């Protein structure tokens, strides 16, 4: 009997449903086993990506994340169980994956991908799957992959909407497919990005998009089918509207166009307009602050003060401190409700929106009696009242 020595008997049996697909067969499976895939982000998209790539038999899988598992992850990050809360995501993920398929080699990067480590990490891999959740990392992954000539599979989600495409595909003739900067040359400025109050995602959505992402990774690696190159799949799950939009390389692309100006990784936080820590501190200095403990004392001493909550109503319904609800977008219109003759404590979830509200009220109406609750309701829940639900 002649036996292929590339795979053990156990592997042949495990992967047999791939091996009997005529156009995939044992050649496709060999390509998967020889491949190295880097999965950036082990969140909602990373969960199905990692599970399907592991199950499918990708030989080496790198896993990058710096977060620990939190309760609020479990609604969509189905890789984790309740017992994993508090553990580093990479470790919890790999522990689970090892149980799923012992034939895979895993490499753990328990770190945040950044401009100083991205090239070193990515260069070891054949393809990257981007399952991150913010613009700076999106552009970082893109630029690193372009500089290293690596294809990468992109998926992105927001509430009920998803997008998917294959960027920077490497054709055999040395040409490449379009990348993220061909589609979106620049990120939105921070003020125009949906804020933390407006984020949120329906739990199934990353499962759908992450699964499609895994399928594209497998197609690119095996060479079977037509990967989603220069085409973006867009899915509005609420209306069940699916579209595929075509896009081309942009000659003005700053990293891969005719006259590229980017030759190395840059500061992506800065590029995305995210203020540096010093700027953030300077901004906060202009606002008077009150700690969670000080707020508790105010309450206990029966002092006359007003508590304003600038979050949205749907947040208020999760947990609240009994403040008067005036969402940030309405504070200027409803300023008449905010006292000028006594201490007013303003809060939101983390202190960011309430800081913005105070600065706007000071500038427009000259308030000088407003105090920002430091760390928002989250810090109050941590330090004073652990019965409050955090989100």
């Amino acid at each position, binding site marked *: 009997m002649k036996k292929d020595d590339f795979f053990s008997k156990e592997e042949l049996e495990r992967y047999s449903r791939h091996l009997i697909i005529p156009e995939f067969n044992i050649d496709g499976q060999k390509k998967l086993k020889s491949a190295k895939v880097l999965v950036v982000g082990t*969140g909602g*998209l990373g969960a199905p990506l990692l599970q399907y790539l592991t199950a499918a038999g990708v030989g080496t899988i790198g896993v990058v994340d710096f977060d620990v598992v939190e309760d609020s992850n479990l609604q969509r990050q189905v890789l984790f169980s309740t017992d994993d809360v508090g553990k580093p995501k990479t470790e919890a993920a790999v522990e689970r994956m090892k149980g799923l398929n012992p034939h895979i080699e895993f490499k753990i990067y328990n770190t945040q991908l950044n401009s100083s480590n991205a090239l070193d990490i990515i260069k070891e891999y054949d393809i990257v799957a981007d399952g*991150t*959740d*913010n*613009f700076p990392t*999106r552009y970082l992954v893109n630029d690193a992959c372009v500089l290293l000539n690596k294809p990468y599979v992109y998926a*992105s*989600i*927001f*509430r*009920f*909407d998803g*997008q998917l495409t294959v960027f920077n595909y490497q054709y055999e003739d040395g040409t490449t497919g379009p990348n993220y900067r061909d*589609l*979106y*040359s*620049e*990120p*939105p400025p*921070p003020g*125009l*990005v*949906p*804020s*933390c109050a*407006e*984020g*949120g*995602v329906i739990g199934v959505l990353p499962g759908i998009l992450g699964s499609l992402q895994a399928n594209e990774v497998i197609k690119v690696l095996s060479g079977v089918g037509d990967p989603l190159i220069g085409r*973006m799949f*867009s899915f*509005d799950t*609420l*209306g069940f*509207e699916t*579209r*595929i*939009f*075509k*896009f*081309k390389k*942009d000659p003005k692309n700053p990293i891969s166009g005719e006259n590229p100006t980017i030759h190395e990784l840059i500061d992506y936080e800065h590029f995305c307009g995210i203020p540096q820590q010093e700027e953030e501190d300077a901004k906060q200095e202009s606002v008077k602050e009150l700690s969670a403990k000080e707020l508790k004392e105010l309450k206990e001493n029966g002092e006359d003060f007003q508590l304003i909550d600038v979050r949205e109503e749907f947040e208020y319904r999760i947990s609240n401190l009994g403040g008067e609800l005036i969402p940030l977008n309405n504070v200027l219109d409803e300023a008449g409700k905010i006292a000028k003759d006594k201490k007013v404590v303003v809060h939101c979830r983390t202190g960011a929106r309430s800081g913005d509200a105070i600065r706007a009220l000071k500038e427009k109406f000259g308030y000088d009696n407003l105090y920002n609750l430091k760390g928002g309701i989250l810090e109050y829940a941590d330090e004073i009242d652990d019965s409050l639900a955090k989100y």
Partner: protein
Amino acid sequence: MAKITIPTPLRKFTDQEKTFESNAENVDTALRELVEKHPKLKSQLFNDEDDLRSFIKVFVGDEDIKDLNEGETAIKKETTVSIVPAIAGGKS
């Protein structure tokens, strides 16, 4: 009338309206009509120089207007114009 689809992240600027119908002859005119009806949408779609923002793509059918005739791209009554913003995930 041509139909413009409004993506979810921008619907808060259109009072949750998902589509906008226009008799305009080209994309630019239709988008101007749209932001005239929903003024809060204007700064989301256009920058200070009045150009389309670089994190907003506009497709006529499945074609990028950049590969057609940009804002001058003609639209007909059965045309669907899609506004597709960059989305990055849950974190801001």
